[in-house]
């Protein structure tokens, strides 16, 4: 297990595409691993204290990582545990493995992910499991679980997999969603705009865009997009 602790409070963003595979590298490779501090190139050891416990493919991020972006992006196996908060794009494009965030997460968590599992104990901000701007499809597989609340744009253009939010969420849940499942245990704002397929289940209150019609077990739409998406009361 590889343990990283920030050496100081980051004033600007750090971009660090770190996956659990890094734990299998040599000490020298880890120390020299290239990251960005703002626009400047930096070595991992410039910004983080690095230590090891055992040699399994696991990363432990100990401290405030809310300014650190792209953690776990493109990871395919292994585990990442974040003791504090995590920054944007955590787990983007990931295909396998597991990320556990004990604090809060910012935007774009699990964006366009294809597999694996992400668990956040705190709150998340916007664009959970979304497609990046301009791209056609968001997350297509795997599962994202958020124990707290989420912001806007949950599962936009989602093409598969599952998102579960225990708390409340904002507007635009499952916009242009094609497949997969979103489960919200709290309340949320507008749901399902231009939805083409998939299922959204909500326990609390929500607002439906006008393109949905009542069916036996809930609502179906968005008819404006010729969609057959389901919005159901949990």
């Amino acid at each position, binding site marked *: 297990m590889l343990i990283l602790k920030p050496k100081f409070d980051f004033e600007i963003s750090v971009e660090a595409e770190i996956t659990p595979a890094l734990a299998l590298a040599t000490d020298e490779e880890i120390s020299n691993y290239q990251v960005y501090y703002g626009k400047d190139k930096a070595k991992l050891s410039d910004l983080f204290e690095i230590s090891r416990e055992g040699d399994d493919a696991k990363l432990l991020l100990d401290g405030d990582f809310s300014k650190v972006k792209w953690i776990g992006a493109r990871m395919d196996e292994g585990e990442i545990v974040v003791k504090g908060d995590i920054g944007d794009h955590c787990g983007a494009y990931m295909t396998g493995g597991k990320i556990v965030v004990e604090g809060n997460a910012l935007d774009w968590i699990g964006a366009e992910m294809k597999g694996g599992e992400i668990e956040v104990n705190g709150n998340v901000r916007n664009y959970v499991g979304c497609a*990046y*701007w*301009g*791209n056609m499809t968001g997350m297509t597989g795997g599962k994202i679980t958020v124990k707290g609340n989420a912001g806007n744009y949950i599962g936009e253009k989602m093409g598969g997999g599952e998102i579960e939010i225990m708390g409340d969420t904002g507007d635009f849940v499952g916009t242009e969603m094609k497949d997969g499942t979103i489960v919200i245990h709290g309340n949320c704002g507008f749901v399902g705009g231009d939805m083409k397929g998939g299922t959204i289940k909500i326990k609390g209150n929500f607002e439906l865009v006008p393109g949905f019609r009542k069916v036996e077990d809930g609502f179906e739409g968005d008819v404006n997009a010729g969609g057959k998406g389901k919005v159901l009361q949990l």
Partner: protein
Amino acid sequence: MLHIKNGIVIDPKNGIDAEKMDIFVKNGKIVEESEVKGDVKVIDASNKLVVAGGFDMHAHIAGSKINVGREMRPEEMRTVRLVAGKFRASIGRVLLTSPAIGYEYAKMGYTSAFEAAQPPVGALHTHEELDAIPMIDKAALPVFGNWHFVLKYVAEKNWEKLRTFIAWAIERTKGFGVKVVNPGGVEAWMYGGNCKSLDDEVPGFGVTPREIITALIQETENLNLSHSVHLHCNNLGTPGNYETTIESMKLASKFSNDRRQVLHVTHVQFNAYSGSSWRDVGSGAAEIAKYVNSVDNITIDMGQPIFGHATAMTGDAPFQFTLHKLTGARWSNKDSEIEGGAGIVPIGYLPKNPIHALQWAIGLELGLLVDSDKVVLSTDYPNGGPFTEYPYIMAMLMSRKMREKELERVSPYVQKATGLAAIDREKTLFEVIQMTRSLPARVMGLDSKGHLGFGADADIAIYNFDPLTVDVTNDFETVYKVFKTSAYTIKGGEIIAMNGELVKEVWGRTFWVDATSKVEMEAIESDLDEMFSKYYSLERQNYGVEESWIKKPERLVMG
């Protein structure tokens, strides 16, 4: 001063085909040996190909269209080509940022590129963007075919006013020539229609595309502008449209000019479809090639699609809407006051898609079947794809073997709908150099471009490639690779790129054409005042671009 030693020179304009020669450069021009003395930098070009810098005469590189394209396609902006440092940051997949456009042309050995459709009211923006493109020489062609002034004067058959207006408009927009996009059709689009045939009447004006094109050719020739009318035909992107294209070409038959063509028909691939629907669509390239080859007053460019990402952006607003409906992709529409419009739709060309494969085959058919002094190599960037793939087109035109290999991976539909597989013809290296250098320069009427004769601009590309030993038909992979990055790109006598690495940032000139001395502005003064006060969103005195606002303007006075 430069001395390019022992290079193998191909210079079609001067009839030089792979001869070992030395080239001398002084003050940004190609000169005789005797003029170069003293501190001379020698470039050893032994066993290397030396040609004039490439000239892209039809690309969309600046102005509101490409900028809207960049805005609506954030996914295009995730490819980092160069991190800021000695040079500016350069990004983009197919849609590039302004610095990236200049840098990528330079790396490939291209030294000039002309923006092919400038909305006149957006002229200042276009020039601001052209001024942000380093390395290359530039110019912009304002669009005329749907401008209310033009429609009005054609309806009135007032040729003096039309001629005066053309001269006024090109001066005001600091433009280079007369671009015509779907004449009448974009005006009809303001009412939800289009002009699909040459005889469809333009709503509100009582004129037809036939009359607009004829009148614009007539007055462009009366002004004897550097470049001829540059036509994007009606009915673009529709099965069966090759007939409209040939009919449009025939409108030029009563005009001639001993210096150049009188009509350049652009991105003909999009206008060369036979058939009656997308189910039976085929190639009309052979018929078009037959016509173009039979006359000497018409040139065309290919508009070759490249498999992969592209963005359709044209001043042909109704066509863009059709494309959006056809593909379901995002769509943006632009209206430029009383001058025309535009549309933008993202597109991807897939080899297994029968229509895309057909378009790809038609582009190549045109390139192969039309005489090399009449067809310019182009992708209509970014409509057909990236200009960085010109080497692919060059290699394909020169090698049947490469075409056979490529045909295996595309939809079999092209076998029955086009004649590409049966074409034996292989263009020579000389011809391909002609299609990318001397011909576009001649089409644009620029004597100092596209060749290596004395007095020409010292825009030179040197490639790691000995035409005397490399077999272009069998070694197509080498050809492709070699033309992707020049060994040296020289712009105005300075080395700007070497082996695919930028060396020095330079700023090219912006050419513009001044024909105002050939007309009396008095003829249209009151019309201009009236139209501006009635219909434009800005005052007449605020319209247009002053020469002093342009970084390096180069005025070409039409005498």
